[in-house]
Every structure is written in C-alpha cells, then in structure tokens.
C-alpha cells in the first residue's frame, strides 16, 4: 500500500476541496489515520473504494469515539523582561478544545490484499451538530454498525437507509456510550466493588462497606 502521505496527496488531487489531515498515533502500534472533513467524506470514501490502486472494497469495522471538551495545557517559552533583564520564562497556557464525536472506519482491500486504512470523520460538536455522511451506500457492512453508533453515541448519519436504534429501544433518550451519560441510579449490593462502582456503593451503603 502507498504511504498515507501519498494517498493524501492523491485524494487532494482527485477530490478538489477535500481537507485531509493525517492523525498521528504515538501508541506502540503507531497506526496513523486519515481525518476527512465531513463535507467531502462521502466523495473521499467513494474514491478510496474505486481507485484502481487502492480498491478498499471492505469496511471491516466501524466505531464511534466520544471526545468531550478537553483542557489542553502546553508549556510555552516566552521572552519577558524581568527586573530589567530580558529572560526566557516558561508559561503554562491553557486552551479548551471543544468536544466532538468521531466515526472511525477500518478499510481493507480484498482485491489488492492490503489494509487497514483508518478513516475518521468528526462532527462539529457534541450537542446539536452531530451529522455525518453515511458510508453505508458504499459499504453495506457499515449499516448495522452505523446504527449502533447512532444508538450509543448519537451521531446522525445522513443517507443511511434505515437509521433506527439497534440495541436500546426506540423511546430511549440517552446515548449510553457518551462519557457524560448518567445511568439510572440503581446500584445494588456487589461483593467486590471497585473504582466508580465503589463510589456508588459508598453512596448507597454508607455504613456497610467502609468496614
């Protein structure tokens, strides 16, 4: 398979206006991915499927990721005049990165026997602009998994043939895999609680568990 940089430049030539980013990955796997803007997501995916060199004809996995608002801290060196002398001082700058939802597609090519290519699309925010183009018209395999993402994360896929909840029932209002999901408060006795469950256990059995 070509490198991601090559693919990126070929996409930019083939799909005018597409904004592609290569998302680095500093985990041991080092598997980088392509981030595509949502306006051109469908065209780019179609090109990836149809390009004779790449022929990504198989979407093996589709999943969602919830990125809540995050506070990023970075250390910056700034020049400042301290006591009349110019010095380099380290300053901590805090920026808030607004949250978004992300759909991640893992693409393989059966014909060319290569892959995976990881394709990502992000929504504008987590509240009201949660639409992404559906890639189900390109890969039928994505149908149920996009429904699952819709159910559990709340991403609305435009162009999906049958976008309904799949695991929870239709009247259900929440999206349980979002980080800020609040479960019904129905803790019950658990012999070995730990972490969050332990906190809940303390709330429900204040005397019993502390020992």
């Amino acid at each position: 398979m070509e490198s991601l940089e090559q693919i990126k430049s070929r996409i930019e030539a083939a799909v005018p206006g597409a904004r592609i980013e290569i998302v680095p990955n500093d985990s041991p796997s080092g598997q980088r991915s392509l981030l595509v803007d949502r306006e051109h997501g469908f065209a780019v995916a179609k090109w990836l499927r149809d390009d004779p060199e790449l022929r990504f004809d198989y979407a093996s996995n589709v999943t969602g990721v919830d990125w809540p608002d995050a506070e990023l801290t970075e250390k910056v060196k700034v020049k400042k005049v301290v006591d009349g002398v110019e010095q380099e001082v380290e300053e901590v700058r805090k920026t808030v990165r607004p949250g978004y939802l992300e759909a991640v597609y893992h693409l393989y090519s059966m014909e060319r026997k290569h892959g995976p290519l990881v394709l990502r699309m992000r929504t504008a925010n987590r509240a009201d602009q949660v639409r992404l183009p559906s890639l189900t018209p390109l890969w039928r395999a994505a149908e149920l998994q996009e429904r699952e993402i819709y159910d559990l994360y709340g991403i609305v896929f435009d162009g999906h043939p049958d976008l309904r909840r799949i695991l929870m029932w239709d009247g259900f209002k929440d999206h349980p895999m979002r980080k800020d999901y609040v479960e019904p408060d129905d803790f019950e006795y658990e012999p070995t609680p730990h972490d969050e469950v332990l906190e809940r256990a303390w709330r429900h059995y204040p005397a019993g568990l502390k020992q």
Partner: protein
Amino acid sequence: MDEGLRSELQKQGVFVTTLEELYNWGRKNSIWPLGFGLACCAIEMMAASMARWDLARFGAEVFRPSPRQADLMIVAGTVTKKMAPQVVRLYNQMSEPKYVIAMGACAISGGPFKQGYNVLKGIDRYIPVDVHIPGCPPRPEALIHAFMTLQEKIDAQQLKGEGRPRHLDPDAPSEFPIPEYGEHDLEPPKNPEVWRPAVVVR
C-alpha cells in the same frame, strides 16, 4: 400415615398413598420447560437436555415451543432491559402451575453486566423465581440439581391451606405487570410486590 406401616404394607403388595402424593408425584415428573434461551447459558441448558446429561430422566426433556404448554421457564442467559418485557409476557402466557428457574449469574443478578446500562439486575425483579443457580455458565449438573430442587419443592407442596400452590389459590396472582420502555430505564425498574432484595448480613 406411618412410614413403617406403609413400607410393611408395600412388602405385602398393598400400596397406600394419598391424593396429594399422587398428584405431586405426577406433577414433579413431567415438568415441561419452555424452549427458549437468551444467551450463552442456553447452550448449557441444551447440553443438559442432550444424551450425555439426559434431562429426560426427570421427565423434562420435552421443551415446548409454546408457553401455553409449558410448566417451567428456565431463564437461561442475560436478560437485557430490552428483552425483559417479552420475558415477563411469556411468563404471563404460561398456564398455572408454573415455575421459574433463573439460570446463571446474569439471570439472577445481571452477572458480568450488572453495572451496565442495558442489563436487568436479575429477572426476579419482575417474576417470582423458584430456584436460582449461580455460575457463569452453570454446568448441566447444576441445572439438573436445580431441577431436583424444584422437584423436591413441588413434592413438598400441600394442596390445601397456607402455602398451597398458586393455581389452587384463587387469590394468588398468576400474571405480573409487564414493564414499559421508559425514556431512561424500564418503568417501573422493579416490581416491589415480587422482588425481595437480598439483605446484606455482616
């Protein structure tokens, strides 16, 4: 009747019994389970009914495909909140006398999924359970043990007075409310008339 006298009479070829014994003997040896499974535990339930463990020895090999013909519901597997109303409805459709075995960690408590958002923390929130079997999954032997426990329970039931089986008590409920799908959870999340929460004793 005196046990010694009865066995003495039996040796002489005279069999004495009571209607209650005969009735319970018939009932306990023909418990027909409802043929349905919900998750991995159902595989063990099927194994229990096959040749190696042979549930037929207990008169319970006829898994009925219709709740109308079944006496026993084996809740074998994870009861998700989405599935719970259907399980309760099946139970309501069974005719009395009916019994429930909750098989496996999931059916008795939610099991590995207990703190999850989508799994019921035990089917005993909505329907009365006669025998609970722990295990993930319980081996077929454990299911057979549950069967024998249930048989003992049926055998000991008196047909009159306090504690008689529900089908002989016109006031006892035979159907239980089916929970509705709510916006965040099942409504009601449990039926307080049925559910007896475990008491933590330390």
